[in-house]
């Protein structure tokens, strides 16, 4: 009877001891190395900008010619060289631009004005001493045929300047010292002024213009 029991118990004992030995080796360990995992969280290094509102309707239009019956109305640009605003110099700056990322230069650029029928667009022009693309209107101070002038403004720089171009340039409205370096969270309220062409070769009455703000590396 004992013999039959031991026949089953011995192997069980061997297995048990072997497993004890295994676990003992693991816990004592010839290899004394131990490690812990450390998790480190860092701040997000993103270069970003946020603009609100996303869309703007240019209004409060003025100027043009009453003689040719192309004077501006409140919400329509007149010819020649009517002016429309989004905001008002000295009082209203409806666009909020905020640096939501790491410190960066805030740059700004425009683009061609596109007619709704996909015809001939208006290109941006500049005034002043060294214009990127010179305005060819009266006295070279106003946009010529199929040209337009786009300027952003703020409390920091109420006086006119050369205007935006298709190439990104420092948004000098962004800082009181007229630099465009902005730290995280820095913001600026701005408005936009558009001076239309002396004449448009496209007869569309609906046009789209785009202005883009962009943070860039130093």
């Amino acid at each position, binding site marked *: 009877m004992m013999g039959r029991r031991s026949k089953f118990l011995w192997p069980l004992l061997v297995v048990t001891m072997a497993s004890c030995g295994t676990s003992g080796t693991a816990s004592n360990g010839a290899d004394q190395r131990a490690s812990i995992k450390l998790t480190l969280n860092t701040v997000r290094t*993103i270069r970003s900008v946020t603009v609100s509102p996303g869309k703007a309707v240019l209004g409060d239009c003025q100027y043009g010619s009453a003689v040719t019956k192309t004077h501006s109305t409140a919400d329509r640009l007149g010819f020649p060289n009517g002016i429309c605003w989004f905001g008002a110099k000295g009082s209203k700056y409806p666009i909020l631009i905020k640096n939501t990322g790491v410190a960066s230069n805030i740059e700004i650029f425009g683009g061609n004005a596109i007619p709704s029928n996909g015809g001939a667009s208006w290109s941006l022009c500049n005034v002043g001493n060294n214009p990127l693309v010179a305005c060819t209107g009266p006295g070279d101070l106003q946009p010529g045929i199929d040209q337009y002038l786009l300027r952003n403004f703020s409390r920091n720089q109420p006086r006119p300047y050369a205007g935006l171009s298709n190439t990104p340039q420092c948004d000098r409205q962004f800082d009181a010292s007229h630099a465009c370096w902005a730290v995280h969270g820095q913001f600026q309220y701005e408005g936009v002024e558009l001076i239309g062409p002396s004449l448009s070769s496209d007869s569309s009455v609906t046009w789209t213009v785009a202005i883009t703000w962009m943070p860039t590396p130093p």
Partner: protein
Amino acid sequence: MHMRTCFAASSVLLAALIIPTAAEASIGIGIQAGPVRLSGAAHPGGIYSLPRVLVVNTGTQTESVVIEVERVSPGRGLTVPPSWVREAGPTVSLAHDQSSRIPLRLVVPATAKPGSYVSDVIARGSAGLAAGSANLGVAAATKLEFTIVPGAVSGSSLAPAWLIAGVGMVFGVLAALIYLRWAGWRIRIVRETPAGEPASGSTDDGA
């Protein structure tokens, strides 16, 4: 009376919840601040996978992100022609605060001039164009840096070494088989009939 008060309070609360959301509608885009840098040097005629560039929608509206290459930051180095860098995937659409890593491919022409190249990767949010209004847009830029050295392409980073070795091995075996066939080598498999067994097709009818 109680119902009316309750309704009024609910309306005020609802308005308080909705109005700030509408007022805070914004467009925004972000890109990794660290430069996009190719590990190792590139060679003329090579095709390389650039490190994926992280973009994030920091605005409240959903944005489709377009990647462009343009030199906007100052510094020394040759300017990267925009046609050298291509998006390796489809255009990405991001909801508020959503981010994505966009794969980029650098295709260096065989005629590329050796030297250090610097430009910027620009993530542009394509806010919908609406006729009759000024569209205010956002973009964000980070530096793109790599070096081109003369010499043959040592293996595109698009194809790992094991894949190149595997494809090479398959072609090697195929070439060997074609050569053996062309040289007139034949491998013939003959099945021997065990002794005492009748040959296939014979009869044993005792006649």
